[in-house]
């Protein structure tokens, strides 16, 4: 069974929608996958995104959107089953493996991804990326956290505050 080239929402189970990234790249995905986004869900339910229209996403660039949709497509079947209560252990393990690999990315991509997950309100993705960030920064001092995530250089004021903090509580990191 082939997915329709350009879904108009009424021909068959796999209704397609078109999403347009900030750099005007068009992505065509199944409505079920795009609906993992709370932001998009209502628009899609209202019949938006079908045909040649497409839903513009001015906050998400094409590289990030492609990554986001990779997540949505993988997770859509489980989400459609209401969190997949009858999913087999193999299915769950496969999703877990996918998730682990999915967040094995550069910190700059991580930031775009956390922003996209936030803007599109994709709960599972928000949680997944947040977990990755939390794992990266736990047990670290403020300066190490800034370095790990790629913050810009601290202002003299911020640097002074961090130095004072380390002077007082540096032993807590021992």
């Amino acid at each position, binding site marked *: 069974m082939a997915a329709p080239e350009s879904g108009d929402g009424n021909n068959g189970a796999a209704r397609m929608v078109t999403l347009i990234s900030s750099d005007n790249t068009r992505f065509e995905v199944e409505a079920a996958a795009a609906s993992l986004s709370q932001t998009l869900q209502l628009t899609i339910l209202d019949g938006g995104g079908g045909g040649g229209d497409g839903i513009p996403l001015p906050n998400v660039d094409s590289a990030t959107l492609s990554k986001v949709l*990779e997540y949505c497509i993988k997770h859509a079947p489980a989400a459609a089953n209401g969190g997949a209560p009858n999913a087999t252990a193999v299915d769950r393990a496969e999703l877990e493996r996918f998730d682990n690999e999915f967040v094995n990315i550069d910190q700059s991509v991580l930031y775009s991804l956390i922003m996209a997950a936030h803007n599109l309100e994709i709960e599972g993705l928000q949680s997944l990326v947040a977990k990755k960030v939390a794992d990266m920064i736990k047990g670290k001092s403020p300066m190490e956290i800034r370095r790990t995530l790629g913050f810009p250089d601290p202002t003299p004021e911020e640097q002074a505050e961090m130095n004072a903090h380390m002077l007082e509580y540096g*032993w807590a990191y021992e």
Partner: protein
Amino acid sequence: MEPESSSLRQCRPRLHDGKPPSPPPTTEGEETGDWAELPRDALLIVLHKLEILDIIFGVGHVCHSWRRVTQEEPELWRRIDMLRLAKLEPHRYSQFQSLAHSIARRSAGQCESFWAIGFPDYYFTVFSHGVTLKEAIPKFPQLEELELSLHTDMFNDMYEVCAAAAEACPLLKTLRLNKQRYHCNSRVEDKEAMEIGKMHGLRSLQLFGNSLGNDGLAAILDGCPQLEYLDVRHCFSIRMDRDNMQNRCARIWTFKLPNDPMDDYNLPFRSPKRWCNVETPVRNLSFRWDVYWDSL
């Protein structure tokens, strides 16, 4: 279900080479990812996946906007687990005084549980905004489990705390009131035991190093008919060879005697102390009430 999932795999996102890409409307700053500008909700999801110590010592000092989020979100401060800081040395206490005040402010009364070892007693007072333990207990009428172990009894009112719990918490089933050590030269002190004897629903009681004597123990046995577990290790004022005590305790399923081994005990403890007029932890503290009240 099978065909559906296979069709989903086919429709990976495809690039359409229709229109030429226009420059992105976002600014350069956003492109490189300014973590300090992370939306509050997104940051909170990260913060909720961290331990409180990471927030106190790390994330809370990364930048001004992150600090603001950690300070303005009492939800983060519900469960305060400081057990990893167990090696806290007495000379750090004064630093922790100011830390405790700031934690108390941030939790804004939302704190539901607080775990710590080696902290001075006044921590509780700080957390409860000046309400002492005996005043706070009646606010938890549903309490089933209470632990007041290693309490240095700064206000010398632990028996009053027990009295408050006995009166206000009819559901109380488990009480742990372990001292750091038994003091040999102190008189038999049954005040706490007498109040515990009024906790009629008690099933499990642990009293390491308590100075209760046979009268106190009798009050507990008579007042708590449902008691199944009783641990009076290092309560050397109890004389099991008198008052028919052996027989009276026979109905307790698990009974740990004063001289029983300590192998299954999970708190720090010290051997019995002969003279207790020196070296109480409280004396090492310079607890400044003026600072404390100013900070509330």
